[in-house]
C-alpha cells in the first residue's frame, strides 16, 4: 500500500447553513447508494499546492457521507519530480526537450508505486499526470485490469500541450474509465476512451482561508500589519509574477491615490524558495511601492498565514485581480465568497466567475481598472450589491460541496447507477452560465 495522508475530519452538516437544505439533501440522496464504496485518491504531493488543498477537504467530506475514502501519495525521488515538473510545464504549453530517459524515469516510479498497490477499490481517482501510468502498468503486470472504475482527474489546461509529450501520455490516460477536466476548453479532442467530465475548481468555505472570522480578530491583524481599519483599503492576493501584474496594481492605486489621499493598498502573496522568479518580482514590487507607506506588501515573510489572507480580503472594500493571464483564478473565488466586489482581468477562468457589472468588473487596462475601482469605492451600495451577487454565484457554482456532488454523479454514472451519454455527462456538470 502507498502511504495514507491524514486529514482533519469534516462534517457536511456544518455546510448546511451556508448552502441550504436542498443542496445538503441532494448530496445525501446521491450518496446513499454509494454507501461503503471504497474510494482512493492518488496524487504526488501531500503538502502544498491546489490539489492537496482540495483533497484536504474533499476526502474527509466523502468519508462523512458514508464513502470509504482514502488519499494516498506516491513515493518518488527528486529525479521523478524534476521530470514531472517538466512534463507539467510542457503540457501547459512550454517547450521542453524530451528524452527517452525522462519517460523511463516516469515509468519506473509508476511501476515501483504500482507494485505497492495491493488493495481493491470501487473507484480510483488519479490526479494529474504524475501517477497516470499506474493503471496501464498494473494491467500489464497482473495480466488483467485492476478492480474498480478508474478516473483521471486532470487539473491542467491542455489547450497548448506540447504535442510530443501529450502523444506519449495519451495512451496511458486513454485506458481510464473517466477523465475529469476543469474546463471544456482544457480537454483534448483526441482523447478517446474515458467518459469526459467537466468539474470546475472549488473553494472550501470552512477552511481557515475562507471561514468567517470575528471583527476584533480582523482588526488586531490589520493593526499588526499597520493597516488602518478606518481608511479605505483595496487588495490583491497573488503570487508576484508578470502574469498577475502587481506593478499594474500599484499603478492603479497611484492613480486613485490622487483622488483619495487616504486610500491603502495591500498586496498579499506566499513566497517559496524554489521560485526565483517570484523573488525577483517581489523585489520589483517593493521597489515600485517605494516610500509610500500606504502600500503594504505582506507575505509569509511577514508571518502571513491563511487567517491573515482571509482578514485582508474581508477588510478590503474592493478586491483586485489584475491578471493578464490566469488559470481559473481561485483568489477571485475567495474574494467573491467574502462578499467583496472584484475587479479583474478578462482572462482565463475569471469571466466564468465575474459577470461584468453584476459580480464585479472585467477590465483590460490600468485605466479601466482604476475607473471601476473608483466607482465602487465611491458607491458602497453598488459595491455591496455586487458583493452579494458574487457570494451567491460562488455558492451556486464554486464551493467544495458542488465539487463533492459532481464526484458523486461521476461515480454513479461509472457504476451504472445513473445514465450517461457522452454528451450528456459533459453537459451535466457544465452548469455555469455564460
Amino acid at each position, binding site marked *: 500500500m502507498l*502511504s*495514507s*495522508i*491524514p*486529514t*482533519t*475530519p*469534516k*462534517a457536511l452538516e456544518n455546510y448546511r447553513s451556508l448552502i441550504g437544505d436542498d443542496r445538503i439533501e441532494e448530496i445525501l440522496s446521491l450518496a446513499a447508494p454509494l454507501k461503503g464504496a471504497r474510494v482512493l485518491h492518488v496524487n504526488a504531493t501531500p*503538502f*502544498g499546492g491546489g490539489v492537496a*488543498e482540495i483533497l*484536504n477537504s474533499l476526502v474527509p467530506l466523502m468519508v462523512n457521507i458514508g464513502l470509504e475514502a482514502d488519499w494516498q501519495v506516491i*513515493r518518488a525521488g*527528486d529525479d521523478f519530480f524534476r521530470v514531472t515538473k517538466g512534463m507539467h510545464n510542457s503540457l501547459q504549453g512550454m517547450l521542453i526537450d524530451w528524452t527517452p530517459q525522462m519517460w523511463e524515469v516516469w515509468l519506473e516510479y509508476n511501476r515501483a508505486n504500482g507494485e505497492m498497490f495491493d488493495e481493491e477499490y470501487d473507484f480510483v481517482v488519479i490526479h494529474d499526470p504524475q501517477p497516470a501510468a499506474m493503471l496501464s502498468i498494473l494491467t500489464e503486470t497482473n495480466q488483467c485490469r485492476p478492480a474498480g472504475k478508474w478516473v483521471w482527474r486532470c487539473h491542467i489546461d491542455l489547450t497548448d500541450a506540447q504535442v510530443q509529450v501529450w502523444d506519449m501520455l495519451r495512451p496511458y490516460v486513454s485506458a481510464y474509465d473517466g477523465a475529469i477536466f476543469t474546463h471544456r476548453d482544457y480537454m483534448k479532442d483526441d482523447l478517446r476512451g474515458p467518459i469526459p467530465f467537466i468539474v470546475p475548481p472549488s473553494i472550501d468555505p*470552512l*477552511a*481557515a*482561508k475562507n*471561514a*468567517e*472570522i*470575528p471583527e*476584533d*480578530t480582523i482588526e*488586531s*491583524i490589520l493593526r*499588526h*500589519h*499597520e493597516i488602518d481599519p478606518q481608511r479605505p483599503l483595496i487588495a490583491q492576493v497573488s503570487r508576484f509574477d508578470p502574469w498577475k501584474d502587481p506593478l499594474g496594481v500599484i499603478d492603479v492605486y497611484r492613480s486613485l491615490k490622487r483622488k483619495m489621499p487616504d486610500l491603502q493598498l495591500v498586496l498579499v502573496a506566499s*513566497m517559496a*524558495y*524554489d521560485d*526565483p522568479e517570484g*523573488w525577483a518580482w*517581489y*523585489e520589483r514590487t*517593493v521597489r515600485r511601492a517605494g516610500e509610500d*507607506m500606504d502600500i503594504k*506588501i*505582506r*507575505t*509569509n*515573510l*511577514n*508571518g*502571513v*498565514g*491563511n*487567517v*491573515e489572507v482571509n482578514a485582508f480580503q474581508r477588510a478590503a472594500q474592493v478586491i483586485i485581480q489584475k491578471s493578464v493571464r490566469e488559470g481559473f483564478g481561485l483568489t477571485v473565488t475567495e474574494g467573491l465568497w467574502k462578499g467583496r466586489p472584484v475587479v479583474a482581468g478578462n482572462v482565463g477562468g475569471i469571466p466564468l466567475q465575474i459577470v461584468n457589472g453584476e459580480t464585479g468588473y472585467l477590465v483590460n487596462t490600468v485605466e479601466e481598472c482604476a475607473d471601476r475601482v473608483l466607482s465602487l469605492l465611491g458607491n458602497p451600495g453598488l459595491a455591496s450589491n455586487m458583493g452579494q451577487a458574487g457570494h451567491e454565484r460562488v455558492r451556486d457554482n464554486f464551493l467544495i460541496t458542488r465539487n463533492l456532488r459532481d464526484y458523486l454523479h461521476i461515480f454513479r454514472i461509472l457504476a451504472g447507477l445513473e445514465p450517461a451519454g457522452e454528451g450528456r455527462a459533459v453537459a451535466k456538470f457544465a452548469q455555469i452560465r455564460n
Partner: protein
Amino acid sequence: MYGTLAPTAKRVEDYVPLVGRDLIDGLKRLAKPFKGLRVLNLSVTAFGTGVAELLRSSVPLLSDLGLDCQWQVVHVDEESARVNKQMYRALAGGRADWDERMVRTWQHYTAMNADLLRDHFDVVVIHDLQPAALRTHIEKGRHQRSRWIMYSHIDLSSAQDDVWSLVRRHIQDYDALVFEDETFLGVGIEGVPVSIIPPAIDPSGPRNMPLSQNAIAGVLDQYGINRRRPLVAQVAPCSKDCDALGAIEAFRLAQEQVPSLQLVLMVTSLPEDPFELTYFETVAAEAARHSEDIHFLSNPGDVGNVEVNVVQRAAKVVMQRALRKGFGIWLSDALWKEKPVVAAPMGGIPKQVIHGKTGYLASTTEEFAGHIVNLMGNSETAQELGAAGHQHVTDNFIVCRYLRDYLHLLEGIA
C-alpha cells in the same frame, strides 16, 4: 543573495506596557551611538522557522531604534538547498552523508552569494552556519572593514566531525560568535570571543496577541476540537527529535486518569526527507487510531501563527516530550499565555521551564502523564505556574531583552 526583505514596521514604544519603561529607555540609550550603523542580518530561511520569527520582530525594532538594519536571505537552488539541509542535519547532531561533491557545491554557492553581496555594511550578522564561508570568499576583496558576527541557532555539541571541522575553519576569523545557550557550543572553538544570546518571542504579533473567546471557539470548531473537554497540546515539528509518538504515549497514560482528556498535536514544520516522512506517517496512523481523542493538525494551511495562538490558549497544559535540536523558544509562547508546560529537560527547555515554578521537567512517560494529570485536577497549581511562567518570559524571553543583548554585542565589537 535575495534582495532586502520588507518586514512589517514596529515601534519599541509599543512594548512599554509589556516590559516597562526602564528597559525601553535603556534600549534607546544603548542604541544611540549606533545611529545609522549599517547592519545586515543574513539568514538561510525567510519564513516558517524560529530564526525567521526572530528576525521578523527584531529587525524592524532595530530600525526603529535608529540603526540602518536590513534582512536578506541567501540565494539557493535545488542542489545547494539539499546540501544546506544535510549540513544543518549534520551540525545538529543527526547523521548525514557528506562527501567532496557536497563540499564543492557548498563552496560554489557561497562564492556566488559572496558576489551578490554588493552593498557595504558596517556589521554583518550571519544567522546559522550554512553561509559561514561567505566571509572567507569576501575577504579577497570587499567588506574588509566590516565586522562579522556568526550567530548559530542550533546545538552544536554533538555535531558530525567532518562537517563541523569544515565549518569551524571558516568561522575562525569572525569578530564574534553567538550561541543561544552555553551548552550549544561546538568543540574546539578557540580565539574568537563567544557570547550567549538566547532567542526571544514577540508578544505583540499574531502568535501571541490576545484573542477573543469567540475567535478561539471559531478555530477550535473548525478542527472539530471539543471545547468542553480538557486539552493538552504539543505544538512542534512532527519529528523524532520532538518525539510525537512519546507525546501520544504520555497522553494515553494520562487519559486513563482523566478520560475526557484530548490531545492536539500541531505540526509546525513538515517532513523534508523520506526518513522524516516515514516517521510522520507512523504518527499520523497512531493518531488516526484514536481520532476521537487525538487531533493531528498537520495541514500547513492549519498551522499559521493565529492557529498556534488559538491552540496554546485553548490548552490547559502544553507539553514537549523531547527536543533534540535547538532552544524550543515556542514554549515561551505558551508560558506567555500563562500555560504550565511539562517538558523534557533538553535543549533550551530548562531555561524556560523551571521545575515546580513555571512547569515541570519530565523524562519518562509516567512522569509526563503524572504531571499532566496533576495539573488537570489542580487548577490552582496550574494557574500559579502559568502566572510564574508569564513573569519568567517577561523577564527573560521577550524580544526587547534580545535587542538589549544584541546592542551589547555591537558595543563589544564596534
